[in-house]
C-alpha cells in the first residue's frame, strides 16, 4: 500500500469552480512532486517542492494553479478556475534526500470537470 496519502480520491467540479487536492508525503521525504496524468495516461510535471520551497513549476501551474507544502500540514494543489481540460488524475509523489531520483507515488486524485 502506498505511503503517500492523497485526498480526495475523486472530485467533480463545474467549469470555473475551484478544485483542491491534498497530499501527505511519505514520512521523512522532503521533496514533493505533482504530476497530471491525462486520459491517455501521459504524465505532465506540474510543480515540485523541497520542504516548503518551490523548486520548479510549469507555466500552467504558475498561472491557474496554486500549490503549497506548509510545514506540519498536508501539501495541496488547487486549481483556481477549473476547465474541462483539467480533467485528469493528479498524482503526488515524494522523494527522499539524496540523488536517486526515485519517486514514491500516491494513488492520485481523479478530477472530473463537467
Amino acid at each position: 500500500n502506498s505511503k503517500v496519502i492523497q485526498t480526495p480520491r475523486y472530485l467533480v467540479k463545474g467549469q470555473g469552480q475551484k478544485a483542491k487536492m491534498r497530499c501527505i508525503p511519505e514520512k521523512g521525504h522532503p521533496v514533493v512532486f505533482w504530476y497530471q496524468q491525462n486520459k491517455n495516461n501521459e504524465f505532465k510535471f506540474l510543480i515540485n517542492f523541497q520542504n516548503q520551497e518551490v523548486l520548479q513549476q510549469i507555466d500552467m501551474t504558475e498561472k491557474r494553479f496554486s500549490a503549497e507544502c506548509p510545514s506540519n500540514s498536508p501539501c495541496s494543489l488547487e486549481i483556481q478556475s477549473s476547465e474541462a481540460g483539467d480533467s485528469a488524475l493528479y498524482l503526488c509523489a515524494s522523494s527522499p534526500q539524496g540523488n536517486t531520483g526515485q519517486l514514491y507515488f500516491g494513488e492520485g486524485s481523479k478530477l472530473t470537470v463537467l
Partner: protein
Amino acid sequence: GDSVTQTEGLVTLTKGLPVMLNCTYQTTYSPFLFWYVQHLNEAPKLLLKSSTDNKRTEHQGFYATLHKSSSSFHLQKSSVQLSDSALYFCALRNYGSSGNKLIFGIGTLLSVKP
C-alpha cells in the same frame, strides 16, 4: 531537450510467453533510467532502475539492461503472468531541473490473457 520514447501503446500476450517493452531515451547528461508499473486504480510503483552501463538489473522476474551505446533500457520478462497486466512507464531522470524531476514515456499497456 531530454526525452523518453516507448514505441508500443498496447501489448497483448498469452500467459507464459516472453515480453519485451521498448524504451529509448535522449539526454546530454549521464542517464538514470527507471521502469514504473501502474496497476488499475493503483499508484505507480518503481519496478527497476539503473544508471550503470551494460549491467542487468532484475526485480520480480522483470529485468532490463541500460545500454548507453544504443540509448536503450528495454524491459523484459521470460514468462508473463495474468497479474502482470498493467501500465508500464519508462522514465528518465532530468538533471536539467531541480529536485530530480522524472520525464516519463507515454506508457505501454500490457494485457495478459489466459
